[in-house]
């Protein structure tokens, strides 16, 4: 897929790289805290898939809304959720975006247009319909993005959502992050036909497959569909091809993955490729290292801030159940 790399302007590419590094280092810090049992419970990391979030978000405005899945930390950060507030959520702190009630797999931060993760595969697509309906009724030309893995393409909710969005001409972009695994099972073994984007055509909406490890390609594709959606042309499906460099969840031994697959994937993962592309534009590798070091200290400081915040108060556990 390397040959499809779209060369963006150096400053733009630098921004992509920085945003992707921020997500990567956030996830690595989460891994460390999880290993130490400071973060507990299920954690689903998005390492390797960062270009999709960064590229798609670059195609959206601050008015637009994003619905993601339990593998959603990257989407949240791409939407601008402060890393400290996200860490705090995973750490069960009062300062977490959901005061510790959402956790790693189900937090939202609507102030940043991030309408949340969802721990039920495919459910977010159905909810995104309503946000898109709101957008349509307001007439504000807002678009909604709903993202899910290719495993969710076999959930009824996603099929219902595609038809519903199509018949209503909703301004909704479906982004399928195809990392080729439905949790622990190769998706190719679960379907007769593996081209997910073609399913869109059955619903009468456009669908296309793109290099999901290239943020500029993702941005351009999402931007085109978003523009059409803002004009009232309705939904579209983007199948973004990528690879998960880690397990489905923290602790997944990945014995189901062929030997060498991850090693090969690491050669074409988005951050490695963005670095290479920037070096080709003549950027100094020391400058790239400086960017990474800066983001690393930002992430460390955010984690520290979250760790110092008070734990969510058990005496308030019944709060927020009802109006």
């Amino acid at each position, binding site marked *: 897929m390397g040959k499809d790399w779209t060369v963006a302007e150096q400053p733009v590419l630098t921004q992509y790289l920085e945003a992707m590094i921020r997500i990567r280092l956030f996830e690595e810090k989460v891994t460390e805290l999880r290993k130490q049992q400071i973060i507990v419970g299920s954690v689903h990391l998005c390492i390797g898939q960062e270009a999709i979030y960064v590229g798609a978000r670059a195609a959206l405005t601050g008015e637009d809304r994003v619905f993601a899945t339990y593998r959603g930390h990257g989407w949240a950060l791409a939407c601008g959720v402060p890393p400290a507030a996200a860490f705090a959520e995973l750490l069960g702190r009062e300062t977490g975006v959901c005061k510790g009630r959402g956790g790693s797999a189900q937090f939202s931060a609507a102030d940043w247009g991030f309408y*949340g993760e969802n721990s039920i595969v495919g459910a977010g697509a159905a*909810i995104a319909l309503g946000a898109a309906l709101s957008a349509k009724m307001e007439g504000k030309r807002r678009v909604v993005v709903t993202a899910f893995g290719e495993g969710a393409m076999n959930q009824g909710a996603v099929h219902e959502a595609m038809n*519903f969005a199509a*018949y209503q001409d909703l301004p909704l972009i479906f982004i399928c992050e195809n990392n080729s695994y439905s949790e622990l099972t190769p998706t190719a073994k679960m379907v007769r036909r593996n081209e997910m984007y073609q399913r869109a055509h059955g619903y009468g909406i456009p669908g296309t497959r793109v290099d999901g490890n290239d943020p500029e390609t993702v941005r351009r594709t999402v931007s085109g569909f978003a523009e059409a959606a803002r004009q009232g042309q309705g939904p579209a499906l983007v199948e973004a091809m990528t690879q998960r460099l880690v397990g489905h969840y923290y602790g997944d031994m990945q014995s189901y993955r062929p030997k060498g697959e991850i090693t090969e994937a690491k050669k074409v993962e988005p951050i490695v490729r963005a670095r290479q592309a920037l070096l080709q534009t003549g950027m100094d590798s020391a400058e790239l290292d400086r960017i990474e070091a800066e983001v690393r200290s930002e992430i460390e400081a955010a984690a520290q801030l979250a760790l110092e915040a008070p734990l969510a108060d058990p005496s308030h556990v019944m709060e927020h*159940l009802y109006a």
Partner: protein
Amino acid sequence: MHSEKVQAQAQLQVQVLELSYAQAINAALERSLRELPETILYGEDIGEAGGIFGVTRNLKQQFGDRVFDTPISETAMLGTAVGAAITGLRPIVEIMWIDFTLVAMDQIVNQAANIRYVSAGRLRAPLTIRTQQGFLPGSCAQHSQNLEALYTHVPGLRVGLAATAQDAYSMTLAAVHCDDPTLIIENRGLYHGEKQNVKVAGEIEPIGGAVVMRPGADVTILSWSAMLFQALQAAQQLEQQGISAEVINARWLNPFDWDTLMRSVGKTGRLVIAHEAVQTGGFGAEVAARVGKEMFGRLRAPVERVATQDCRIPAAPQLQQVLIPDAQRIAASVRALVDGSR
């Protein structure tokens, strides 16, 4: 300014109309759509066709795009409600039969009920799900279940069951105005019954609140939805036999009006709960447990439940009939309870 005030007051002036249960719901929906621009109403066949039971008749014609038909996609419909509610709309969705909510229970239980809590109150889901349930002769096993207990088991939801036409009007409006996901479970056997006097316009009542339909001294009968009318008939029969039964229409199971119930049981010392849902795990079990604990010293007899037998529901009327309680069975239970504890 002054004239606006007068107008506003005039709007709140109570009118009494003769309406069937279905017409009362229609009036509540019409008022919601007229008064609250953020409301939308949709469901299968509810627009052009006016709904298979005619409850939403003429609303599409009156409100245009805010009332629409959907594909047969309960998950998409309820997902849409959740997403619309968290982004500023106030959706009202009709799920044609409560049995069909099971197809999309994820959106009710995992999604709608969680939104406010899991987001620590930063999101809210003010949506209303209207559906209907109950036995009618010949209704098949997948069109006759009484499933209210499934939803009262889920914190984060509100659940109401309208019995009278006034309930149908007031509770529908209360649900629409409520900022939490609310299920209004109607009963299709009640839709086209006799017209009743319904107070319309007037203030919107909050959710909750039971109604004492008939005062009595010897025993309390708690019921809801269509079974309430069997309970009222039973109370009439019992009166002729010298037993004075107080009948309570629960209306809302969440929030449940414990005060009204405890006050009544405190007075009568006996409680019979009658519901059309099957017995095991029914909401009556919850009531029995709470009353048993809180009124332990004051009960003159154990709490009794009269419910449908724990069975699947057969289509043939004569088979159905033996499973479902009626006024005679309620009266017999009450009589046995009172006679055994005089």
